[in-house]
């Protein structure tokens, strides 16, 4: 594996996470009126495809670009301001989440792709992201943890579960159509 290829892949997944945050909301009947974006889907995919190290680097690179002032977060947000906002914890969660997703995917590389994707997506893409996001939200907004969970976690769970399912579908397609791109399993 050449280092040039790694570099391009890291940059590419960073761009993919940004692009998924910018595409108009993907039609998801089940999600109802909740504003969900595909951004965390990109985070899960980065971990699933690239593995822990490169997946984590891809998210770190994206966050670095956001800090530099590019509006690459969902809803066109960007700038150093987002790291001072109420949702800053979720951004840290994206970084740690991608690493955890990649690590689990790698550990389960001999098992069924869809199974591995669902397990890693739920643990890394949902549990880890919310575990880091909710306390920061509670602190920044001066809320109790219970309230923060009600506001910042529960409404997003249905959407997040759908995203895990979508990530598993994409992982399955790529594992069959382009197995060399599943670096976490090679």
């Amino acid at each position: 594996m050449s280092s040039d290829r790694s570099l391009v892949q890291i940059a590419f997944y960073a761009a993919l996470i940004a692009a998924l945050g910018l595409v108009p909301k993907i039609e998801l009947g089940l999600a109802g009126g909740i504003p969900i974006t595909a951004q965390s889907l990109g985070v899960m995919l980065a971990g699933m495809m690239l593995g822990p190290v490169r997946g984590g680097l891809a998210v770190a690179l994206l966050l670095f670009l956001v800090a530099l002032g590019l509006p690459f977060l969902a809803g066109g947000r960007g700038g150093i301001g987002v790291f001072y906002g109420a949702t800053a914890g979720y951004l840290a969660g994206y970084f740690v989440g991608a690493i955890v997703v990649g690590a689990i995917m790698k550990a389960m590389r001999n098992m069924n792709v869809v199974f591995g994707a669902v397990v890693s997506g739920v643990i890394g893409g949902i549990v880890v992201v919310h575990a880091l996001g909710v306390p920061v939200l509670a602190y920044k907004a001066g809320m109790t943890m219970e309230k923060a969970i009600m506001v910042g976690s529960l409404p997003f769970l249905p959407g997040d579960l759908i995203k895990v399912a979508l990530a598993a579908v994409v992982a399955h397609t790529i594992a069959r159509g382009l197995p060399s791109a599943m670096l976490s399993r090679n």
Partner: protein
Amino acid sequence: MISLYMAGNSWAHKLPARVKLIFLFVLSLLIIPFNTLWFSAALLVFVVALYATLGRQGLEKVKVVRPLLWMMGIIFLVHVFLGDIEQGIIAVLRLLAMVLLANFISITTHMEALMDAVEPLFRPLRVFGISPRRVSLAVALVIRFVPVLLAVYASLQEAYKARTAHANSWRLLAPFALHAIKMTDHVAEALTARGGADGFDRDKK
């Protein structure tokens, strides 16, 4: 350019990026103990005044917080339900002030100046054999990839619309990922063909 940066020649533009970053960091720590309504309101007024010093165009940049407003609304409502309206106002004012202050840096500092300012942070990466140059290349690649990916998605969407009369579907995600991954392979090959991420090493001559 899609960056938040606003070209200009104000006092804030002339301030070194590193000074602005350190100021933001120190201020964000200093305000923690002052949890009163008046202090939070004064802080917000101070930050908006900073924008005002950039002129009319600068003041308009305050709009960047608009995507955050629904979030602020929810935070406020939760406090109203808890019966503590004052804490709700304080929380929202502080969040607005800090986000606006941080964005003030993004608006008045060119991306390259910011990159130079944080470059020392990447020096430890040399231990792992990653040169700051590779970081710059990665940054440039992401900025170039995002519009390309959006174009790929738009073309898939168009074809899908022609077939099904629906504009968008989750079914587009997998082909989108496949398309895009193939594209990165080409970019990686092209990069290697041109001497790789570090370029042809001039020092070795």
